[in-house]
């Protein structure tokens, strides 16, 4: 999974999609996951990075992470499988 290249994310957590003109706001942990996605980290790497830094457990984070990814996909912010292959 990879964040679309043209997506701009500010340090304060403001995300802008130039294709659609839509803006989003993120909380700090959301920004952290996006930067890991931008670095093309795998799900496993992201999970272990977050679990080592935050006071949570694997099932809780897994549920929240899948939900977060679902919303990124819903808003077309991730590259699709085909795009990644190309």
């Amino acid at each position, binding site marked *: 999974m990879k964040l679309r290249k043209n997506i701009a994310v500010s340090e304060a957590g403001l*995300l802008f999609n130039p294709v659609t003109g*839509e*803006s*989003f*706001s*993120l*909380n*700090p*942990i*959301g920004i*952290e*996951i996006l930067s890991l996605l931008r670095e093309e980290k795998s799900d496993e790497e992201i999970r272990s990075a977050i679990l080592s*830094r*935050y*006071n*949570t457990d694997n099932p*809780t*984070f897994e549920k*929240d*992470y899948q*939900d*977060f990814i*679902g*919303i*990124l996909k*819903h*808003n077309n*912010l991730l590259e699709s499988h085909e795009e990644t292959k190309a």
Partner: protein
Amino acid sequence: MTKLRYERPVIKKLETGMPNKFGTRTEYQPMTHIDGVAVEKLMKDYGSPLFVISEKTIRKTIQKAKKAFKTRYPRVQFAWSYKTNYLNAICSIFHQEGSWAEVVSGFEYDKAISLGVDGKKIIFNGPEKSEEDLTKAIKNDSLIHIDHLDELYTISELAEKQKARPRVAIRVNMDTGVYPMWDRFGFNYENGQAWDAINKIMHSDNMELVGLHCHIGTFMLAPSAYGIAASKLAELALSVQEKYKHEIKYIDLGGGFASKNTLKGAYLPGSDTNPTFDDFAEVISSALLNSNFKQEKLPMLILETGRALIDEAGYLLGSVISNKRSSTGRRNTILDIGVNILFTSFWYDHKITPAQAFTHYSEDTCIYGPLCMNIDVIRESASLPLLNKDDHVVIHNVGAYNMTQWMQFIALRPNVVLIDMDEKPLVIRLRETLDNMNSMEKVPSHLKKFNV
């Protein structure tokens, strides 16, 4: 290394051009204590969900209401509307504060008597009063508010039988300029029904007409309507005085004052926009003082307001069962509080706050109850912090009607706790049990065995 506090990742689309120019309200200010008692401890000790009522708030509110009226009008009497909340402890607080009882059924009448209220200080309203109820009310010299002619004739017959002269009032409905006009209770003012009923009573030796009553609506946001009602009842009372040289002892304007809740669809919170007791008192007392009553003959003003006196004192505490996504990507949160115990969520956008601290990040959330019923929605949309499973929430302004209109549907009803003046929590209604429910049922002997 100490780990950072976890908050679930969230991304929220920024939208402009929303139809509400005031923006949406975010309820992230936590409510950790009620009258000095920790919410967490209350839920640990008494379970979730849990109704909590503040005695301090009840007393403060009734004292504020009394002050608003008594500083403007010389003779004012409040009567506690039992149907709004008839838990014995709650009724007793209002009676300690000097309120009479206002009841609308035989059950409520018996409740007031069993609490020790003097029969003379019970106002008996409502369209249904059985002969048995009326006989009791006549014997106790209660104030009977007549709703229809059938009742008037029944009272007349019973009075003759009991060789008594009951004190009665008639219920008057009228146009006060608000929509919808309530015309189902009592006799209409404009078409002469009320005057006709008054004449019938005045020509009967069996009853004494002591008062005039009306109940113009519910959750009234226009105090001016009460001014119109007060003027119309004053006019009727003066007509009685002129025609029969008979003095009407009281004018009862019923209830209906809005509380601080926010009606569904309102732009601004009810706490900022709904009229205050002073607003209602100013209009009502001006209407009565400006009428043609002689100063020494001013009738007593009776008020049966319920909702505005108790709503703010009630809280409903609950827990998050789960967070989900709808098919459209919207956040759904399921609480253990359903419409079965929070009936008023059909009318209001109840204020919901977390019971623990969160960051300022929020999500637009639809709040569902736990019932397996599609209608079980507590808030269609609330901007709430990032609640997790088992987090606790506080629902505000639930003191009116929920503890009387609640349903034993799907789940059992929870504990109700009163936080007293010394900030001590006391259970005033126990959580229901399966045994409570089963004790009212009987299974015929041929149904007692089955093989499944």
